[in-house]
């Protein structure tokens, strides 16, 4: 088991399977809020469903309306269980807070692989990789 200490962005705890994107994500236009599927053309996660995952990506990008899209997903039940960023920016940070999605940044996301079982304790800023895939 690997434990990493990061920085709390949005409070809460979650446990789930990691879905890792090497590229930034735009939640406005890049993800369909009704289905939770990434639809940005050419994106490494294109066609994948982020719902219920521990979503791991470097940082956010795109329009500030993206914060409301996370809220939308949370409202209809398509949101990720938690977010881990290399470095959060305003859109993802505000989106995670208003949607109450646990969010941590400032951890080495290269340590996490898609399929790893992850535990996130955002209150303590701790990410645990419980089992490597």
């Amino acid at each position, binding site marked *: 088991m690997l434990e990493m200490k990061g920085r709390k962005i949005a409070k809460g705890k979650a446990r789930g399977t990691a879905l890792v994107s090497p590229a930034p994500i735009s939640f406005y236009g890049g993800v369909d809020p009704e289905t939770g599927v990434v639809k940005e053309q050419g994106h490494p996660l294109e066609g994948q469903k982020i719902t219920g995952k521990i979503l791991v990506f470097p940082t956010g990008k795109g329009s500030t309306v993206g*914060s409301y899209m996370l809220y939308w997903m949370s409202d209809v039940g398509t949101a990720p269980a938690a977010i881990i960023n290399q470095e959060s*920016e305003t859109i993802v940070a505000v989106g995670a807070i208003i949607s109450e999605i646990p969010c941590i940044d400032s951890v080495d996301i290269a340590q996490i692989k898609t399929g790893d079982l992850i535990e996130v304790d955002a209150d303590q800023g701790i990410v645990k990789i419980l089992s490597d895939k």
Partner: protein
Amino acid sequence: MTLELTKEEQAMLDGEYGRATQKAMEILTALGEIYGAKKMLPVTSVQISGVSYANLGEPGLKFLNSLATDGKVRVLTTLNPAGMDLEEWEKLGISEDFAKNQLRVIAAFQKMGVVTTATCTPYLVGNIPHYGEHIAWAESSAVAFANSVIGARTNREGGPSALAAALTGRTPAYGYHLDQNRKPQVIIQFEGKLENVRDFGALGKAIAEVAKGKIVYIKGVQNATIEELKGFSASIATYGGVGIYHIERITPEWKEYALPDETITLTQKDVSRHINEMSDEIDDVDFVTIGCPHASLREIEIIAELLKEKKVTKEMWITTSRPVKEIADQMGYTKIIENAGAKIAADTCAVVAPIKGRFKGMVTNSAKACYYARGRNNFKVQIKPLKEVIREAIQ
């Protein structure tokens, strides 16, 4: 945590002032941590973006309603333009469905104590900070105007972070709030003559292209009206994403900082090139609009003079703030404009109104309006000086 909170701020974060205030303080402390703020600053004025139902949608409205259950703003707070004239939406051809939802958005803001006049020029209608004051404004053109022309201090807020500042009366101390982030990084030596709002808009776009995100110190601009600075602020913010600029002898902080070493020269040719870039070939102009950012009283007076006893041959919108429209009513300008067949609309503009698909070719004097008409609505555009825009409308 490097961010230190006062007792009151900590109490807000702990939920002692209710859920909306707590959520707001969570947003602000997270942003403060991300951007390395050491403390919160009291703000005296807020401008909120994300007002058009077309941008917010049902989820955004739901979020606003959740905050409105127990949230109240602590400082003077105004709104960005909405998707329609809040009173006379029918004359703009807005659907009843959209109107109903737009009014639900306004009601949520009103419940929180926001002044629901919807304008991108809060500084023309009484939400006007003074030099050095810390504020939290969204609306990129107003941010650039406040930082540069007034010398107040604000970051480029988004809708939720501006609302959070309103509900707490605070903003984290980072970015443009601090001296070191307001310093010019490149000198723009302009050689040429600017005659109107269109020219200033084109120069803003030209500067955005060469400055690449750096803060500019502009030399060679002899004078500028408030309307020209309003248009310039909108253009440089839209095309460059920068929230502050300095103009020698014109903006108040021009002497405050040491000048950078790098100089880029721009000439009349660059301005002309960008005017050309904003001039598509249009077979059939079917939409003429002025008021991006919202028209000032002086602009409406000039438009009324030009439209006196004339008839427009195309759909023409003059967009402005409600208070300015009311003075225009009182002065008889509105009547002249409406007699000519043009529409004067308050609370909204051609950028945020749901007009995609309604028009094909748009003529305006605003560089910002050109950007959004192309990007959001797929219109062809032509930028012209105000007088020529009116000539196009009555042709």
